[in-house]
């Protein structure tokens, strides 16, 4: 039986004038339609690179080895032309910064319609009506009136909704969301998370949600994958991870989360040795985690 997505022993590293940097060190993961997986890790854990590699978005000087099979077809090593066929139609992606994803000089209506005219060959009027119903689907009110507005005329949360619309417009089987709410206010974040959840249950698509915040992961996922230093240290059902975390790093993450503590004295900072911020000179990952735990 072909899984929707099957990643086997994925390894990604970057060669620069300063040496070799391992971003992903042997990750294996699989999912089916309807799964909602949260990839949780700190900056430098490799979670973003992992997400991007699923769409073949890791450019030189990065090197990708191993296997990523989407619906049976191998993604690693595919030509740009083939990958373009998968992007949007098979797998859609939403990025952290909504401003990056939208071209400021075109109206959002035209950007959304472009998806339909270019990828599906629809006529302009068909594309327009599809675009408007897509905008409604992601919760933009008075979509027909706002069709001609420009990105800067929308708030941050609205722009992110539009980016989500662009990612799901072609009805992909998987949606990858890379920290889509990190830059947003708390109330706006709640709305976006609700939107993603409802879209997922409506369409049954698979969801991979990359985040550094366990609390957010809990709201959105059925399974959690914890990443540390390029490897998966624990994965399992969401509630299992919260009730019975097995790996020391997972436990450390929980102990350090402000929402878990009663007083600031309860907070247990993750020791510097564990911090994997890729920009740090001190405290880059030293030891590999002792065991990999799956439940």
């Amino acid at each position, binding site marked *: 039986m072909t899984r929707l997505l099957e990643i086997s022993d994925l390894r990604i590293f970057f060669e620069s004038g300063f040496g070799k940097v391992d971003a992903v060190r042997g990750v294996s993961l699989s999912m089916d339609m309807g799964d909602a997986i949260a990839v949780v890790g700190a900056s430098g854990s490799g979670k973003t690179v992992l997400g991007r590699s699923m769409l073949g978005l890791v450019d030189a000087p990065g090197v990708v080895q191993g296997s990523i099979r989407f619906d049976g077809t191998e993604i690693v090593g595919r030509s740009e032309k083939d990958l373009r066929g998968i992007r949007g139609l098979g797998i859609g992606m939403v990025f952290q910064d909504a401003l990056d994803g939208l071209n400021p000089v075109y109206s959002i209506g035209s950007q959304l319609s472009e998806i339909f005219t270019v990828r599906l060959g629809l006529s302009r009027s068909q594309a327009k009506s599809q675009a408007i119903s897509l905008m409604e689907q992601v919760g933009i009110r008075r979509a027909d009136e706002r069709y001609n507005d420009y990105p800067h005329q929308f708030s941050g949360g609205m722009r992110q909704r539009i980016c989500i619309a662009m990612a799901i417009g072609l009805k992909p089987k998987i949606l990858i969301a890379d920290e889509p709410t990190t830059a947003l206010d708390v109330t706006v974040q709640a709305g976006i998370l609700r939107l993603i959840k409802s879209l997922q249950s409506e369409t049954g698509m698979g969801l991979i949600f990359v985040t550094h915040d366990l609390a957010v992961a809990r709201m959105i996922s059925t399974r959690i994958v914890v990443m540390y230093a390029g490897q998966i240290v624990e994965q399992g059902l969401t509630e299992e991870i919260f009730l019975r975390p097995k790996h020391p790093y997972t436990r450390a993450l929980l102990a350090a989360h402000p929402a878990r503590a009663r007083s600031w*004295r309860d907070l247990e900072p993750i020791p510097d040795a564990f911090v994997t911020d890729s920009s740090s000179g001190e405290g880059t990952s030293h030891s590999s985690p002792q065991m990999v735990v799956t439940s």
Partner: protein
Amino acid sequence: MNDHKAEFKSPLLEVQGLRKTFGGRGGKPGPIVAVDDISFSLNPGECLAVVGESGSGKSTLARTLLRLLDADSGSVLYEGRDLLSLPRAEMQRQRRYLQMVFQDPYASLHPRRTVAQLISEPWEIHPGVVEKSGRPARIDALLAEVNLPKHFSSYYPNQMSGGQRQRVAIARALALEPKILILDEPVSALDVSVQAQVIKVLMTLQERRDLAYIFISHDLPLVRLVAHKVAVMNRGRFVEAGPTDTVFDNPSDEYTRTLLASSPAIAEDA
């Protein structure tokens, strides 16, 4: 909760009717009201949290308190003297007692300076606080207070992680022995897993030095851990203010309730 005992002494800071607008011309108030008639007081050792989302005016409030922006009206009494009406030179001198830690650890440190240079810069601007000969020792001491090892003093910002940079920013803010720290979203730009580090440092410092904090944040679960008092800010006004537990357990304002309901909560398991 913050169980550090903040005894009642006379308020360190008393803000009355602070108002700041934008879009005005020639000194007249403009149409955009960012800070609308804000009043509060702050005692030594106390942590006041100002909670709001973007656009609430909280950052403008911080800058107006420090006279980085000129207020339209109101007063900011520090130890009885109104900072807003002091002559510039005198204000420069008072600045050492009210320091600020900014949100973005990647932007608030000058990229071409070492940690030692960053921390000693306040001493160059305010000569007389620490003699040149004593500076290296003070730098080591400050780094120790923020849990950073001594050898960090020769590092450049790009060699450090976000959490480390933010701790350097805190060390720098302490260089002039301030009495009040204004913390503008001090951990929002950091991964959740790193926030604990910085929060612990901040709270330990508060206890040890009896500092007063104005802690600006949009993160409610975090605020609950660190604040004695909370003021919820929306569109320039404090829509609700009071002791932390009261505001959290019995919010009276609609906006406060919405904020509370939106925070992802992962407390209370099994």
